């Protein structure tokens, strides 16, 4: 995956694209987990979600470099 993506003559950072992608992914995960009540088994849901986001974003970010 390229580090920068050219779109209409401007360069966009690949990280931005990944960021949006991970946001969408997390949103999908949230709606499943919310419906099934998975977050009830977690001590601090917000922290857990943030941690998942960091893991996903960091993991995908490694693809770039």
């Amino acid at each position, binding site marked *: 995956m390229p580090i920068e993506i050219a779109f209409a003559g*401007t360069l966009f950072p690949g990280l931005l694209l990944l960021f949006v992608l991970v946001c969408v992914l997390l949103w999908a995960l949230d709606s499943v987990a*919310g*419906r099934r009540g998975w977050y*009830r088994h977690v001590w601090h849901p*917000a922290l857990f979600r*943030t941690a998942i986001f960091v893991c996903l974003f960091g993991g995908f970010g490694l693809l770039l470099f």
Partner: protein
Amino acid sequence: MAISPVSATTPPAAPWYAGMRGFLKGEADTWLFVLRTTLAFFLTGWLAMRFQLPQPGTAMMTTVIVMHRQSGMVLAKAFYRVLGTLIGAAGALLIVALFPQQREPFLVLMALWIAGCTAGATLHRNFKSYAFVLAGYTAAIVALPVIASHPGQIFDSAVARISEVLLGLLVTAVISDTLFPVRLRDTLRAAVANQYAEFLGFIRGALLGEVPREKMEQAHLRVVRDAVTLEDLRSSVIFEDPEARARSAHLQRFNQRFMAASTTFQSLHHLINRLLRQADPSTGQALQALYQPLGQAIQSGEVSPEQLAAKIHPVRKGLPARIALLREGIGGGANVEDFDVGAELLRRFVKEIEQYVHARGQLTQQVAPSQEDARAHFVRGNDYAGAFVAFARTAITMLVLGAFWAASGWAMAANVMLLATIFSGLFATVPNAARMTGKLAGGYFIGLVAGYVCDYWVLARMDGYALLVAGLLPFFLLGPYMVSRPKLSIFGLGYTMGLVNILAISSLHSFDPTRFFNEGTSHMLAMGAAVVSFALMPPLVGTAWLRRRQMAGLRAQVRSAAQAPLRGLQHRFESTNSDLLHQIVAHTAPGSDESREQLAWALAVNETGRALIHLRQDVAHEPASTPLHAHVDAVVLALSDFFASPSVDGWQRAERALEAAMDLARTQCGQAPVAGRVLLHLGLVRLALVDDRSVMAPYIVPSDSSAEETVDAH
């Protein structure tokens, strides 16, 4: 007895530390909020400098603007702020691309864009309106600083602004959601439990004895308030809690059933009261007897919603037999007709209360996968006059400031325009905007002074980010602390904005007194412009004129009940009514004659509109005979005319149309079952129309047929 009389009469003296606990709890919450805000603020600044963003100050300002005690609010605000920022930046690019070199058309278009966004903001509640405000002033933030000197840099400016705002939002969202968060979800839970308990308690109380009309109206007010509050909370909580988001449709349905059940209950209660006041109260008494089993079911103290639903279910099943039994004991054709109307209403109420209790039970369980019916959207009632005033005010302010900029050539005039945009957008939806902006300006001025002290006495001696934090902290802390105090919150917001804005923190801090005074003057000018514009063209929110308009709008709801497409109409009708009434009563003194009249009208509109909707639904399912259909249409038309402009003439026309339609329905009762149901709905409408204790009283002309009914029982 061991208890001494002294200790039985006076409670033991509270220990000296009793109040301390509550005080410390409140203070702890406040200081945690201050901690979150401060942390987000400085972390954002540090990150912005690490990322070498051109204006770390903008990112830091963002954290100040979205800070809120409850994390759901921050997340909702942040979400809409992202939307607004992106749209605003796109708007700025478009406007600059159209007129890169011509200043006048650029300024006009800019003013129109901002004014349009501000007007849009007044048409929405919650943070959706915030997104509109943002779309307006982000365009100004992006375009104004570069347009005069280098329009070519507009794209870089847009990207920088977006990055700064997003960085600020991201940091604030993460910190307020993870660091000792105050959950909005808990507030929502409490609101649901409270609404449920209060509503059942009210029904319980009403079943025990007659509730006076004023109390009924107060109860209606509470229902409206609860319904709107729940909807407001729901729309923010979904950002905080994935589980609440999965439940969102349930919550909407719960709220819908709440409104439906309470409207039916009020119709029923007024009907029974009215029948009891007649010369012959036997019909009313029969209806009260019919009521009994439900009353006993609800009476049964603290039980779970499932258990309560299980108790109401057999009551509903046994209702038809009970109706038949009691119906036999009533003499006289007119009385039987009235009894039928009441019995039908009661049947509906029992069904609705069972659904309501059931929906409450669903909320406490795991999220059920069923999505059987379409989402029940809460529809808001809007008035376009307010939006128009907001549009005109913002456009004029922007044009005047733009002209000032063009005429004076003062470089800082762009700054004035920018800040004025921000403030006239932020407060466009608030009543008393001039006073609020004035307060904000006061806070802003103190913030500027504090900024001067901080900048030239403290920061000038310091070097490096850690020392910047240390130097700024004592000045900054005051801001969020004031914001968390209800009385000082606006002042505190102004203070913080002034301080942060004037310092314009960046990696290369410049100590330039000329710039400081130039900017300070421009900021205060902008505040002044916003105050003056709000004073000259105040927002319509809360004015008597708008209230009268909204009342007319509320009454016109009967017309929409009579004519709008039927699909989902009932909930649309009820939620719009609630929203309108909520806006109207928010600005009248509670308990005044005016507020009483508003509530009475709202009740009448609700009753009549709902009956009309049910009538139309029945006729739509099963077409009535042509002459009956024509008569029903005439009734609907006459009623919507009467509600649009109430008058004695209109009342008489509506009453005559009703009588004619009812006579016809009576003759057709034997042939078509739909005629019987039409008769019930018409009867309900008529009973509400001739109710001499309701808001109809001044219009009622006692005719021969209704003379006996308007006689007071006492």
